[in-house]
């Protein structure tokens, strides 16, 4: 009997340790830390989402060439900017991506996203952009001499040099002897700062020329 109880005790102890380890594992894999880490790595979660296993609450790039007209969604932020690291901002940007995607689909336009980090260090910038879900394309490094700043703040479509910032641009492509070229680029929306971005989402993310009927506040 004594020998039998000893075996039971050992088995029970092993079982208890296994249950403990399992609960730690469940706690860890269900944690926001792990899910955030997962979504910042291209492949795993998007594949799960594509298979329909999870309702897609994140923007997922299509990874294909765009046709005639696209809406380019640009997020410009910075690892070193306090306002770009506001804890509410990733959710606001994700919402903005999804709403813009819906609107683009409604008007039969393509959509792509660009994440731009105004940081000296490429790694710091990528780490910052990793908090904002998936992008079709990212640009990081060279601080304000960054290519995205040249395109969307200083030269092609000039505007306020500040982060965080959201810029929506309508781009028209046309075939040329060098392949498909951008033949027209038009600013649709520029929102600077978390408050402007949040206000814009609050009123239904309206875009001039793109009636959506989504406005949640009456004029």
């Amino acid at each position, binding site marked *: 009997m004594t020998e039998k109880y000893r075996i039971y005790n050992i088995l029970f102890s092993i079982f208890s340790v296994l249950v403990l380890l399992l609960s730690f594992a469940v706690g860890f894999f269900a944690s926001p830390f792990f899910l955030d880490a997962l979504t910042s790595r291209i492949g795993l979660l998007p594949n799960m989402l594509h298979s329909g296993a999870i309702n897609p609450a994140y923007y997922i790039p299509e990874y294909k060439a765009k046709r005639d007209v696209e809406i380019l969604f640009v997020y410009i932020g910075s690892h070193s900017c306090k306002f770009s690291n506001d804890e509410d901002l990733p959710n606001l940007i994700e919402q903005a991506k999804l709403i813009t995607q819906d609107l683009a689909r409604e008007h039969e336009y393509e959509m792509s996203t660009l994440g731009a980090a105004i940081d000296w260090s490429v790694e710091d910038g990528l780490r910052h952009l990793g908090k904002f879900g998936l992008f079709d394309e990212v640009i990081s490094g060279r601080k304000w001499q960054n290519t995205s700043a040249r395109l969307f703040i200083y*030269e092609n479509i000039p505007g306020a040099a500040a982060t965080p910032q959201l810029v929506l641009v309508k781009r028209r492509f046309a075939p040329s002897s060098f392949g498909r070229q951008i033949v027209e680029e038009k*600013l649709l929306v520029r929102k600077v700062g978390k*408050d402007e971005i949040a*206000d*814009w989402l*609050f009123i239904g993310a309206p875009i001039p020329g793109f009636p959506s009927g989504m*406005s949640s*506040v009456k*004029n």
Partner: protein
Amino acid sequence: MFMEPYFARVLLVYMIAIAGCNSNHPEIVTGRIHPAQEWISNLIEANERTPLMRLAVPDTISKEKARLHDIDPIVQIGKIEEDSKLMFGYIEDLAVDKKNKRIFILDARYNEIRAFDYNGAFLFAVGGPGVAPGELQYPQAIDFDDKKNTLITLDRNRTVLIYSVSDTSIAYSFSFKVDFPPWDACVMNDHVFARGYSEEVKSAVLKYRLDGARVDSFGIYYDSENPFVRQTLSPRGQVVCNRESNTLLVSIDHTPIFFVYDEEGTELRRIYLDTFDPIDIIEGVLPDGRPTLEYTAPQKGENVLSRFFTHENDFFVQYFTVEQKGGRHLFKFDPNAETGEYMGTLGEVAFDIDLAQGYLFAASNRPYPRVFVFDVSI
């Protein structure tokens, strides 16, 4: 045995994280508060040649004075979603053509000036984002001279753009560079007065002809012995032209004292807001030796200046009190008179007033950009 080093590692990571966060914040090692009280006192006391006018919010505000705060606009320009010309990105400034009853709205997101009539009907637009002639990069302010039908736009890229306005259209005519990154500008008698500051000229206002030639510089600036403080605080402020009396009102942000000049730059009067409590700007030195100025978050009861504007011979100034109900306090004064008048409180930021027609023009960007026209004739 297993847990102890684990917790030690967690503690170490936590401590590193805390140290990293701290290193991102500027640390004030030594500090003086600006605007310095001695600078204000010197300007108030040294007024033997220039008379001083004091303005103050009365202890009790009559119902009549509080009325402006509660009235509804008769016209609203700006929609959440409709015609693109009624959807604004961010309203930065307004100018009003009182003779022809038109409002020019400067949109700093679409980099465009749009003209509307007093009833809110769209008339025409000019500008657009870009660096080509007539296009805008970082638009900051506009002003309209109805005597000459000249509209100017100030771009933070050191450019003043001049447009000529007809009854039905607006056309870009010329632009010139100014000598410092400007903060504000106004136009009067074929001259542009740009508000800013540079160590070279040590003046708050530069005067240019419309062909871009600099003809004069004048104006009191924030005189600190620390060049970093002087160069940071001096450029920020407003300039507004009174084209009836040919005078200018000039301010330095976050200070309670303003200066009235004639168009030649002679100081005519100083205005002191007795009941204005400015926010604290703390001068300091970072641990690595670099100078810093920290704008503290406005505290309850502190005051922040809003837009200045003019009508006939009067200047209008307004400010609001942080976390205090009652809106913005509005004052009116004629620089040639002995005293000014407390006009009451406003719910929105006013940009201009047309007392002859009985209209007040205000704007708000939250939750979406709009311009309001109030009937203040009653």
